[in-house]
């Protein structure tokens, strides 16, 4: 059972899962880093984008990797509305209130999706040929997903590291008051960050639709994986998100193959609990 092929295949499976986890966690981490708001509805942005790509393919035969791009402007519209109507009012609000308000938003979006499209589990019938590397088989869509994920990370690295607005985002995350005193329009930074997170989740939504089911509460299940990743990596740390996603994805895959498939559902929750009580700043965060 402990053959190299199984191990290799398991790690690849884990990385493929991690690429999806990264898409939801990046949004969570960015928004938390800059605004200190935990946005529980991040998963629903993903769900809506997944439905968008699903319907574009099912009804009009649009290639999902094309609709992935089309989902970005659509998600920006929704994201801006959510930011203006809800998120902006939650700045500096009580933890409990932020949590419950965004939870309310999440439920509302789920309800709307269910009202429109029913609770059925659906799958986007799109396949790409698999790759054989030795005894390890790589599903085509998963390989492309990993590629898309790397592209998103590269974009993010460029945006945050090399652009002026990116520097403002980092500055605001690092010290909000300091950024204001430097003349940064922090509200614009907030909006930019929130929309960036929304857009990444929208891209993730299409990735999700290609390998998972599409249904109204798909995002609700994923948001907790996102929490586990963000807590593991350190709230608000981008490097933490990358490492956290890989650790979670690969650990889950390993537990699934070598221990028990049911217990692999426990990994994310165990990570949340154990990391919070033992090292609340996570792997990459600094103690606050």
């Amino acid at each position, binding site marked *: 059972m402990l053959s190299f092929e199984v191990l290799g295949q398991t790690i690849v499976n884990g990385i493929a899962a991690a690429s999806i986890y990264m898409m939801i966690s990046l949004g969570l981490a960015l928004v938390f880093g800059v605004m200190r708001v935990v946005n529980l509805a991040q998963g629903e942005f993903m769900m809506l984008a997944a439905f968008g790509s699903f319907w574009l393919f099912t009804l009009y035969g649009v290639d999902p990797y094309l609709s992935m791009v089309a989902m970005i402007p659509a998600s920006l519209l929704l994201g801006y509305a959510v930011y203006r109507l809800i998120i902006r009012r939650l700045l500096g609000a009580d933890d409990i209130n932020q949590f419950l308000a965004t939870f309310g938003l999440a439920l509302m979006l789920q309800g709307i999706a269910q009202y429109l499209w029913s609770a059925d589990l659906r799958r986007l019938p799109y396949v790409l040929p698999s790759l054989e590397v030795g005894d390890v088989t790589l599903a085509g869509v998963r390989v492309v997903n990993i590629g898309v994920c790397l592209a998103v990370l590269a974009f993010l690295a460029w945006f945050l590291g090399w652009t*002026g607005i990116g*520097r*403002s985002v*980092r*500055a605001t995350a*690092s*010290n909000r*008051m*300091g*950024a*204001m*005193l*430097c*003349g*940064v*329009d*922090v*509200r614009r930074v907030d909006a930019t960050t929130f929309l960036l997170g929304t857009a990444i989740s929208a891209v993730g939504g299409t990735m999700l639709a290609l390998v998972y089911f599409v249904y109204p509460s798909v995002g609700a299940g994923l948001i907790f994986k996102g929490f586990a990743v963000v807590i593991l990596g350190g709230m608000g740390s981008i490097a933490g998100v990358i490492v956290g996603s890989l650790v979670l994805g690969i650990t889950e895959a390993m537990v699934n193959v070598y221990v028990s498939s049911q217990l692999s559902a426990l990994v994310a929750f165990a990570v949340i609990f154990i990391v919070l009580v033992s090292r609340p700043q996570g792997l990459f965060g*600094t103690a606050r």
Partner: protein
Amino acid sequence: MLALDSVEAGYGQAKVLHGVSLTVEPGEIVVLLGANGAGKTTTLRVISGIIGARGGVTFEGRPLIGMAPNRIVELGLLQVPEGRQLFADMSVEDNLLMGSHSARAKPHRARALEQSYALFPVLKERRTQKAGTLSGGQQQMLAIGRALMAQPRLLLLDEPSLGLAPQLVTAVFEAIRRSNESGMAILLVEQNANQALRFAHRGYVLEGGRVVHRGSASELADDPAVQRAYLGLRAATA
């Protein structure tokens, strides 16, 4: 240049400023003295637009109350805040570059960076280091350097000497004086009244959110009440 007229401000229900009036003229160094909790920092926050207030605050005739902090920075009014408010996990150079964020400062960014490095050579040595890893004095230099990057016309300084070794205090004040000589007006909040009065043109004394004394630096230094309250201990130990 800057004028405050009966400014009232506070946090929630707790009122801190009960009608503060003061002015800063071009090219001046004005010092704001007062005990802890007198409202010095709150006054600076009102000017920078960090907190709201009632009353009149104008900068070159333009009302500032209700204006967003980033717009105030665009006017050339910069604050080096208490506690420095640096971007601890960003590099020294990124911190300085953030200083020239405003549209009016951006075109002069390269030259301003040169000037900052010339003023504080130690910052150039450590340009790639994270700001959080600098010593207290270096952080203060970085905070001032960052503010200067914005090409301010009026610089607000909140306790620049706090927690610094004496020779560093001298260096910091020297840097401030040099900036002033190039035409920048300065409003300084200091507890180290002795040094501040030696260096400022005029001063105000705040007590319980009100201006209780005002005058030229030498007048204040000679005022017995000011001496008793703010210079006494210093005078005795000096």
